[in-house]
């Protein structure tokens, strides 16, 4: 036990038990075998950590590549040309009087008295929103 010059000196009354504590809390000295095992363990851990870092970098770049591919695919899907007869809608009830002329004429031309199937693109956007309760996909 070393006493310190900066004010942390321990008094005589404490020195004896502190030395007992220091002596009781002293691990056995390493022999050559244990020292070698200790060093090998450090080498193994260092190598494992290096491999783990490599694997982590690989996972990160893999995740980036996957995300980029998914993003590209989504972008292509979003930018796809609208099909010719997109979203056919079925008018389940008689076309409301407030419907635009194109809807009413489609209704009149429809074979079925009860229903008329109209291409969504033929409906004005505001009517489509207005008629969302009576028009189903």
């Amino acid at each position, binding site marked *: 036990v070393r006493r310190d010059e900066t004010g*942390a000196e321990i008094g005589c009354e404490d020195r004896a038990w502190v030395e*007992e*504590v220091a002596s009781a809390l*002293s691990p056995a*000295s390493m022999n*050559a075998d244990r020292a*070698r095992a200790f060093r090998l363990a450090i080498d193994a851990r*260092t190598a494992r950590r290096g491999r783990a870092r490599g694997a982590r970098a690989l996972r990160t770049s893999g995740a980036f590549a996957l995300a980029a591919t998914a993003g590209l695919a989504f972008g292509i899907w979003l930018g796809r040309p609208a099909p010719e007869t997109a979203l056919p809608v079925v008018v389940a009830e008689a076309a409301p009087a407030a419907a635009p002329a194109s809807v009413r004429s489609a209704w009149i031309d429809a074979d079925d008295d009860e229903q008329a199937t109209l291409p969504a693109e033929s409906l004005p956007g505001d009517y489509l929103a207005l008629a969302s309760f009576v028009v189903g996909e």
Partner: protein
Amino acid sequence: MQDGDSKPMTITIASTAVGVAGAAGADFTRFVERRRERAVRLAYRLLGGDEAAAEDVAQNAFVRAHRALASFRGESSLDTWFYRILVREADRHRRWQRVRRLWNGDAEDAPEPRDEKPAGDPALRRRIAAALDRCSGLQRRAFVLVHLEGFTVVETAEILGRAVGTVKSHLHRALATLRRELGDLAEPARRSAS
């Protein structure tokens, strides 16, 4: 205090090591050789006498030091820098140990040493570990570093990243607590001396 085993080692660091390469591997070998005994002993004392955990903690500290050695800027001494890593590693181990105890719902005693011939009295070691547990983390670290490991208060303050006055104050409180708990240990020593 002297390091026990100072035999030269021929094992070199693995080639996959990160941060320190080539000839620096030999430097790291010497770095480990010079500090190994003290590192294990310090960890052993900080962990209250758990030999296996002390070796684990010391090894982890060396691995962390190995990674960071290339970026060591020399703002403190190499020893201070390394023992700071070691103390943090021991803290981390204690925290996980506490979590594991809570999880398992039991209070583990200090484990028996792995050697067939245990050094010292296991009951006494457990008692000391329990007394150290009654100190706060900073008190325990300050006591171990200054009074058991022989670092100066200034070195200890650098290792713990605290002001010198703070370390002194924690040392004082640690001594008061431990004197109360372990003061009777001096009696047999006094008796045998007389």
